[in-house]
């Protein structure tokens, strides 16, 4: 099992913005149940600003901690500002993640982007973005620097 720092443990034990949202303006779902992490992000947007954000995550402690922290980081931000959030910033806000858990922070970044993309599609009258459950696991991608934790 990974060794987590105190910030990660705190975020995991007391996550913020947890749970489903009724009538969201955008929903993004990323990850792969095969790999053991799936993240769903719900957005409520007012005047181009993220008024509320929620997450539901199936995954390890790092996946839950990064979900919580990433949602906190973009809450109240404009869409453009939220799109600038990087996985590195999420990991840094948590005081660093074990190398094999960096992909969890990437999942949080992608989850927020997917929810924003869905929000924009809905605004254009396009059908909602389908969940991306068939995505390859980040840790399956050859050449990723995070290593495999083996």
């Amino acid at each position: 099992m990974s060794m987590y720092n105190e910030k990660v443990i705190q975020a995991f034990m007391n996550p913020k913005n947890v749970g489903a949202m009724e009538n969201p303006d955008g929903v993004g779902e990323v990850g792969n149940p095969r790999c053991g992490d799936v993240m769903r992000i719900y957005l409520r947007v007012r005047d181009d600003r993220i008024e509320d954000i929620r997450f539901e995550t199936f995954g390890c402690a790092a996946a839950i901690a990064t979900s919580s922290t990433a949602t906190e980081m973009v809450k109240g931000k404009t869409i453009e500002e939220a799109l600038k959030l990087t996985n590195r910033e999420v990991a840094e806000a948590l005081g660093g993640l074990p190398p094999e858990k960096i992909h969890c922070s990437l999942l949080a970044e992608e989850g927020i982007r997917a929810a924003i993309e869905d929000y924009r599609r809905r605004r254009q009258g396009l059908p909602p973005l389908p969940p991306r459950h068939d995505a390859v696991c980040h840790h399956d991608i050859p050449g990723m620097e995070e290593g495999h934790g083996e």
Partner: protein
Amino acid sequence: MRRIYMDHSATTCVDPSVLEKMLPFFSEKYGNPNSVHAWGREVRTAIDEARASVARLLNAEPREILFTGGGSEADNLAIKGVAESFSGKGRHVITSAIEHHAVLDTVKWLGKEGFDVTILPVDSEGRVRVEDFRAAIRPDTILATVMYANNEVGTVQPIRELGEICREKGILFHTDAVQAAGHLPLNVRDLPVDLMTMAAHKMYGPKGVGALYVRKGVRIAPLVHGGGQEFGLRSGTENTAGIVGFGAAAELAARRIANGEIDKERRLRDRLIDGVLSRIEDVLLTGHRTERLPFHASFCIRYIEGEAMLLRLDFAGIGASSGSACTSGSLEPSYVLLAMGLDHATAHGSLRLTLGKDTTEEDIDTILNTLPPIVENLRAMSPFKKNA
């Protein structure tokens, strides 16, 4: 807060009575058991006694027991030792898909060395089908190795039936009994097994010492060459304190089995299993309901992931384990659960709770009160729900 260790399949504590017997062999009884003088002879006597104690646990003869540096080494010695010794007779080896890596990877290694390998599937309860086993045997089969009981799901294999087939077909049969030895009555005079692996640290003995039972008359080749210790099968000056500790642990285990303490453990295990299944929805027991280790409870808890559960339990003072990818440090969840036909998402939610000799009814009740809210809390966070 009382901390409750529920990971006895991983390892056990050294019992105080075992430690007490070991300690002099780090200090005043430091002789080399291979020396002729009094310093050596007193240690040789202690090793002989330990060997007799381990033999008694299996109803074996002392010279059928050889000490190794642990269970993995004993597995390697059994499999490679037979392969080396019998390769002139045939080059086919049979094992199962749910073996411990010490067996599975050793057999796969033989596969790269020019042996033919058959890895048998298991049923949904983790048992090798006897008919599959029989059908896999070929004229050139020299060895079959099937674990006595599985570490992840607790299932006990039909070892007697498999062994009888091996007898009938004239092939050697090895079983990795690391999880079973000291916890189930084993009698090699009555069981058709030729080689059996044990490890002291799973029965309240020290880590770093194991044993291989080799039936009288079975000739295997050594892995470690040198001074010819352990009947020429495991050279190297003996780990005297460890071996003495194993002997003491074997005596303790024999007493526990004779006193019916195993039955007490089994009742507590059933209280735990029944409690988890009745208090939490969408949980499945992994492994066989009755043909399982008396101290072993294992589950898959749907819609949540194992590592998250373990950490929450840890913060509540309960030490458990899981076969999720996040805990194994690999990409895949437990190969054992996948071999039993579980899907990946379910396997990621695995939870193993293994009881020990000091586990109490109150401990079980604490777990039964602690686990459901943790599961509920994590499920509230999960995008997967019942009927979703």
